[in-house]
């Protein structure tokens, strides 16, 4: 047991922090979020080519760096801290894990290698229009083709992160008449496949794009199927759990950022003849924010260790569902709390477009509902312990 970063992990953290402080400035974020693509392709190119972050936890046999989930988490925390606009979560935190968990050797090689090389962005399309975010949310239907040699996808996936721009869609679809996690298949579908209609859904949080994707009788060959037909429910659930840990890490970074913003602002801002940060009520609230940040940190890195074991370990690691729900529930509340306090403690400028707290506040809200709200995750835990 050693619950601290190794020297190498600390180096990764520092270099990510320094790099993002340079490139993901407030101005850069605002420029990226004003585009329909939603991120700066040149910056994404630097990340892929100079830093290879997209390859961080992809095994070496598929062209990745072969590091662990903790290292992935470290990057996500720093990205969340700087509101980096990028297809990282969708490509690495969703699609790559789905491929790792559900693909066969050939599929992994086919798709993970271009991801690891930075040549391919990807995402996971799973939730339908009913507002759920778990594996039971799948609404797209997959029917075996009459000749038995492929599938036809029909239906709508909504809230797909970077769904309008990803090169590859990992699509969760279900057998007609199935429910919950039963009957679910995963498919690797190039976004330019005939019958795939993608529409950008502009969102309150402009730092992460969402799309609706309509599958209008999309015909797929057998090779698009990851794993066995109708048997991917467990892999999808595990993918979503790993992604929940990823989002929790981003949330931790965001919470840290708004705490830092708030402390800096209140130290500078003078009212009633004193820096407002010297008023005890403000200090106590900043202290409560720090408590949320530090407990989130404990939650995230605990969950990251569990996720690492679940993804790469020798055992099946039954703790992942609990750890993922714990981290997502806690960090969702913590980030939202810190972000709203940040607006409030900034006073008048806190709700202007010009200052940054609102960017984090909106990101906190969108991250809260992404992959299931806190109360949903608590209920999942209740099911396990009660």
């Amino acid at each position: 047991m050693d619950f601290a970063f190794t020297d190498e992990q600390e180096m990764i953290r520092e270099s990510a922090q320094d790099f993002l402080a340079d490139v993901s400035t407030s101005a850069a974020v605002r420029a990226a979020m004003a585009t329909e693509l939603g991120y700066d392709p040149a910056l994404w190119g630097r990340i892929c080519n100079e830093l290879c972050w997209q390859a961080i936890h992809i095994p070496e046999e598929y062209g990745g760096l072969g590091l662990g989930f903790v290292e992935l988490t470290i990057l996500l925390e720093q990205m969340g801290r700087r509101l980096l606009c990028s297809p990282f979560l969708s490509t690495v935190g969703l699609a790559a894990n789905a491929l790792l968990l559900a693909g066969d050797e050939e599929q992994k090689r086919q798709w993970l290698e271009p991801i690891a090389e930075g040549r391919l962005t990807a995402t996971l399309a799973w939730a339908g229009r009913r507002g759920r975010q778990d594996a039971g949310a799948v609404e797209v239907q997959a029917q075996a083709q009459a000749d038995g040699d492929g599938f036809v996808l029909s239906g709508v996936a909504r809230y797909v992160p970077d769904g309008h721009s990803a090169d590859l869609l990992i699509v969760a679809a279900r057998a007609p008449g199935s429910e919950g996690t039963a009957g679910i298949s995963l498919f690797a579908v190039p976004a330019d496949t005939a019958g795939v209609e993608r529409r950008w859904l502009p969102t309150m949080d402009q730092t992460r794009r969402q799309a609706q994707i309509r599958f209008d009788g999309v015909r797929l060959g057998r090779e698009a199927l990851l794993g066995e037909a109708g048997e991917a429910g467990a892999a999808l659930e595990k993918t979503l759990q790993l992604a929940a840990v990823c989002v929790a890490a981003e949330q931790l970074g965001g919470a840290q950022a708004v705490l830092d913003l708030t402390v800096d602002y209140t130290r500078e801002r003078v009212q009633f003849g004193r820096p407002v940060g010297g008023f005890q009520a403000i200090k106590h609230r900043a202290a409560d924010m720090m408590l949320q940040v530090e407990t989130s940190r404990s939650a995230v890195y605990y969950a990251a260790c569990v996720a690492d074991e679940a993804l790469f370990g020798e055992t099946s690691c039954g703790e992942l569902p609990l750890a993922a729900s714990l981290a997502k529930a806690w960090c969702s509340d913590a980030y939202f709390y810190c972000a709203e306090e940040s607006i409030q403690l900034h006073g008048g400028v806190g709700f202007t477009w010009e200052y940054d707290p609102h960017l984090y506040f909106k990101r906190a809200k969108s991250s809260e509902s992404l992959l299931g709200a806190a109360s949903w995750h608590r209920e999942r835990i209740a099911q396990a312990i009660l």
Partner: protein
Amino acid sequence: MKISFSAEDERFRDEVAGWLADNLRGEFESLRFRGGPGDEHSFPEERKTWERRLAEGGWTGVGWPGAVGGRGLSINQQVIFHEEYARAGGPGRMGHIGEGLAGPTLIAFGSEAQKARFLPGILAGTEYWCQGYSEPGAGSDLANVKTRAERVDGRWRINGQKVWTSLAHESDWCFVIARTEPGSVGHRGLSFLLVPMDQPGIQVRPIEQITGTCEFNEVFFDDAVTDADNIVGAPGDGWKIAMALLGFERGVSTLGQQMQFQNELDQVIAIARDNGQAQDPVMRQRIADAWIGLRIMRYNSLRMLSGPQDGSLSKAAMIYKLYWASWHRDLGKLAMDVLGPEAEILEGAPYDLTRLQSLYLFTRSDTIYGGTNEIQRNIIAERALEMPREPRLG
């Protein structure tokens, strides 16, 4: 103590509802439920036309005394008017700063000449007002006002900057707290000036908010001028008048505000019923709590209005801003949580918000403008609970 209205009051309620049903239609139909907080930027010209329609119907200055041209309604009837106005979706009042703040201030402290000059325009919906209080660097702290005015050639010459001024670009006049005694500090040496907006010495710069829209403005005074007569009270009376004005803000119009809140809550409830969240026990608790909170807000307001009308602030009044602002902010969050992931999806690009998204984002300002929650807590602790004052340093 009784909470029901008299039969006469209920007849008055029918009269108001009837007039609104007859008038808030046709060209005004599209204004229903528009122009409230967070939506102030919408349809300004149409809403001014609507103000004149109100004036024709005798529905401006309903609480002003008859002697100055007001309708002189009882408190109960004012409550009813504001409730019915909001219930019918009456548009956000372009004239509310004139009617609710400038007018009452002039009625209480203005000269006869000032009343004769300014009150008719407010009542008729032909002159609009904005408020020059907050300053950058001073925030809610009027004692730190740096805008200064000096007497030059029979006029006041004003230099400085105000901020968080709503409707500045739609207003004809601004009331400005300025320092008229050079070198004075704190609450002393401030005066209450009436300044015409349409002059080269005034620049208005909109402030883009969290919603992407502009409700508030910065107002720059660069050798702006106003006539020597346009001072309310004597030089140095500014603090006293400003404090009295704070009292005018907490009045019967709160009941109308609450009816808007009820409209919003009803919309949240309708969505919850529609998308199944109404079946979720945790959400049920939160919706019930919001409902309870709004009822309490109503009865809290009625307590404020039923107490002694001696101008003293009751305890029910001292907590009111903190209470409604926090409740409304929480309603915004509840609305989003009821919507779930769909809460994110805009009406359209680049940043067209739905009504509930606008509620959610704009309510973040409720707990800040007009005295932050923190300032409100200071006031409650020091004035109502008489706890020791914060030591003043520096």
